[in-house]
């Protein structure tokens, strides 16, 4: 790690005023701190968002769900109101990493980071979520712009995400045997017959929707409906853990399992 300075922000405005050109926001630190330790990232300032109360917590109002950016995976997983409004998302949060990661890592950090193998981005796409920042609202479709890339501007802060709970939803993932991140994570959500499918872990441009699957499922929400859908391996990541063909295959298997679980 290189030398850095630390600022504990007490409000969103305070945080935004301290970030500068070379600073980074610190959320759970589960991703940022290891990369700093390996000297892959070297921000001159860390602006800690952990103590900004406004950024924390889950609120559920009927089908409307809002989750503060600094809400940890464990809090999302354990929120009783969310468990009844959108159990699939609560369950997803409970399957991220290990207990230590779930008690530090945050939903805002996860989506701002947009690791292609992270779980939340698939859910944000399938849930048609809105990403709230300190300056605007961005639809999930526009937010995830490429691997480790998002629509966020320099210094922009994710404050919350919100969505309307689907009628039904399910998430199935196949874990990378080494990192335990998703090698293929598929979130299927049924919004009144209009089905959205978000995929993590597999696509080389990061979290993506699969429109063929969405079309196939929108008239017929059954695993069999996916039989005829071909997942294009050309768009997939390929590495020692699995070829693009293997990942394409996994996406379909996970999608079918998600549908079967709905």
């Amino acid at each position, binding site marked *: 790690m290189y030398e850095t300075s630390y600022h504990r922000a007490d409000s969103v405005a305070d945080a935004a005023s301290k970030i500068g050109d070379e600073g980074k926001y610190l959320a759970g630190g589960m991703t940022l701190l290891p990369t700093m330790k390996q000297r892959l990232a070297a921000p001159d300032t860390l602006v800690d968002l952990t103590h900004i109360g406004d950024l924390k917590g889950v609120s559920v109002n009927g089908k409307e769900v809002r989750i503060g950016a600094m809400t940890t995976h464990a809090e999302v997983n354990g929120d009783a109101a969310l468990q009844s409004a959108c159990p699939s998302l609560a369950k997803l949060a409970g399957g991220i990493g290990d207990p230590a990661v779930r008690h530090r890592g945050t939903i805002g950090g996860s989506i701002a980071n947009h690791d292609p193998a992270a779980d939340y981005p698939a859910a944000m796409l399938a849930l048609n979520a809105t990403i709230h920042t300190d300056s605007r609202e961005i639809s999930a479709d526009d937010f995830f712009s490429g691997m480790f890339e998002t629509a966020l501007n320099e210094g922009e802060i994710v404050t919350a995400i919100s969505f309307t709970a689907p009628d039904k939803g399910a998430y199935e993932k*196949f874990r*990378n*045997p*080494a*990192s335990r991140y998703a090698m293929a994570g598929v979130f299927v959500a049924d919004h009144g017959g209009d089905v959205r499918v978000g995929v993590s872990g597999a696509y080389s441009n990061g979290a993506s929707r699969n429109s063929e699957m969405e079309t196939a499922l929108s008239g017929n929400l059954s695993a069999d409906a996916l039989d005829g859908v071909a997942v294009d391996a050309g768009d997939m990541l390929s590495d*020692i*853990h*699995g*070829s693009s063909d*293997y990942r394409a*295959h*996994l996406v379909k*298997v996970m999608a079918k*399992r998600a549908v079967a679980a709905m």
Partner: protein
Amino acid sequence: MASHLDSNVIPPSRQRETPRAGLTWIGQSMKRVEDPRILSGKGGYIDDVKVPGMAHAAMVSSPHAHARIVSIDTSKAEELPGVIGVYTGEDVATVVDPCPSFASPPVTQHAMAIDKVRHVGEVVAAVVAEDRYIAEDAAALIEVEWDVLPAMVDIEASLEAMGDGVLHPDDRESNKALDESFEFGPVSEDFDAADRIIKRRLRWNRSSAQAIETCGVISQWDAFKGGYTIHANTNFYNFIPFVIGGSLRVSPGEMRIIPVLTGGSFGSKVFIHKIIIMTSALSRLSGVPVKYIEDRLEHFTNSDSHGSDRLYDAELAINDDGTFKSLRFTVLDDYGAYLQFGVGTHGNAMAQVTGPYQIGSFGMRVIAVLTNKTQQGPYRGFGSEVTNWVMERMADAAAEELGRDPLELREQNMIQPDQFPYMIPTGNIYDSGNFQKVLGEAKSLFDLDAWRKKAADMRAEGRCVGIGVATCMERSVYGPTEWWSLNNKETPGFTLTSTPEGISARIDPSGKLFVTLHSPMVGNSPETVVTQILAERLTVAPEDVVINYSDSQSGFNGVGPQGSRFTAMVAGACVSAAIKLEERLKRFGAHMLQRRPEDMELRDGKVAVKGLKDQETSFADIALNSSFFRLSFPDGEEFDSGLETTAVYDHPLSTDPHEDREHLGIFYPIVGHICHIVAVEVDPGTGKVEMLDYAAVHDNGTIVNPRTLAGQVWGGTANGIGTTLSEQFNYDESGQFVNPNFAEFAMPTANEMPRNFKLGHVETPSPYTEYGIKGGGEGGRLGAPSALTSAVEDALQNYGVKISALPITPPVLRGLIREAEQAA
């Protein structure tokens, strides 16, 4: 009938303590005496050690698999404040010579590369600085110019390499480091006479142990005395001075190696000679004590402890009635860039290469291949884990071709309980065993009949469920001829034949029994087992036993925890020491009670008159009197003050290899036996394997401590599960090591262990060791791969999938399933 084994005569047993029922401490699941200080963070690992004036080293490593070093510019690094010195391989070579090599002829290896690098991660320069941060910063400022050479990555291709593809052109013309053939018994005749020959090509890929703690050294050159004081987490501290003295240009006695608690080895810390030599050179060059702790990347890429990486073409000659006649194979082993101990891992495998079966002859051609990868080193099993797997694969293949039940075929060929000691074709013996009993226990522990029915029902429902059984050997108590017996007979190298273990023991005037060990603690339980054995033999309370460790100048013969030897060997030293102490205790005690020594016995930490209740005196009283009151005893040196002794135990049963290598002698005779049975389910959609049930029965002779043995079996099984299902070091075509970190290298965690692991034991005591103890440190990894592979193959029987390479990761299995689906 004359046999090639006739000249290999089994020596008589030197056992003094016979195995018996009713022991007090041996056999108890005593809590580990090591644990309180370790669990409370007070253990003292290498990184906890600080020496006054100590500086820190950071390394510059090669990013290339094979390259010439054109130039190294250290000027910017030297200017950084806090840097004490910057050194290249050439600087290091001014004060040390190349690393020792057991290979013959040796493959030259410098502790820090000179002229050329041969694998990614090989160190070419080092910075010594006031702290590690500065050292790392300075290392990043060193500029190296490279001339990249073709990388040799594939075993077979590397054999064909010429010109710039040859790794060691000064030593040898090709990348073939060794090519030796052996026939033990009438192999050709047996193959000619057999009804069938089963052939398989089998591939075992490399991985390594990756203990939590990496390797580390603090070395301090003493310019006045001309020697080194070294703290290191080597397993071998009383032996390593003799191995590295030449490299360090000092006599072994001029090195003081101080052991530390070691955070896991599994073989990986047996030597660590390279970084001891390198760090010592840095201390000598810089004039200050230097600490170097490998970071994880360096441990993966440069710590010379990668495991076996082998390609077998194996043949088993059998008769139609199922009788195994002969086994032979050609094996290519990808040893990486150097060959630190020759083909010792194949020598090791010769101890039990024919498994628990009666097989009359065995032949082998072994070819050691040099490639641009980190060199191999010891890893739990030391090569025998691979031949166990090969033997069990061949047994399964034979069953399949004969249409026989694999278990029944194994039983048909097993050595019978009345055939021990049993000499296998290589000349090693199996001292004792009851394989049928182990198998019987395992079957009932697992409830095999019920499971077989259940698995068949599940398969009928379309699930991929299968059961695998492995019946394997676990050789223990190694003799060192394995290091060189397969070397070229003309230049066998360092023909070491001794692996002793010693202790010192002293009863101080307060009555405590102080024991000094000469081998370190590496996560095993040396203090616990020594406490139990001495408490048993001397009738003292375990809490009165205090254990310490020597250093290499105060210590003597100790070879340490490796080759599943430590408990059995140190038990011998404990018994020898106890015999000597007992004699003195009785002599002094008898005098104090005015009796004759032969009337005395040891009873609950006292010397007592045999058969008489109140006629006794405690060890503490005897020690007090014998230490401080010399005039109370008669003249004569037999009453010299104090109660102390040293004792060394030599290998209990070994013979020399035959001059012409018709056999290899007895070198690994104390054999355990293991049976693993596992039920798995394969998810055909993803290729993922789940273990549904697991039973392991191990026979390690007399068990000193069931709890610590269980820990060994559990851990070894976890290693074996990793080897089978997920762990592999991946090198790409350019020789880049793609996954040297835990985000990419799939080591199993608790989540991947079987939920309901059932462990059972059979105790067939050894007739050769004290109390009949056998080693048990490697068995899990020696059995799990075979059982799991069989189970997965069984689970995929409807697809006809055959497994001939490990690891069987999800994409590998999914690929095999897809091929089968497409073929159907």
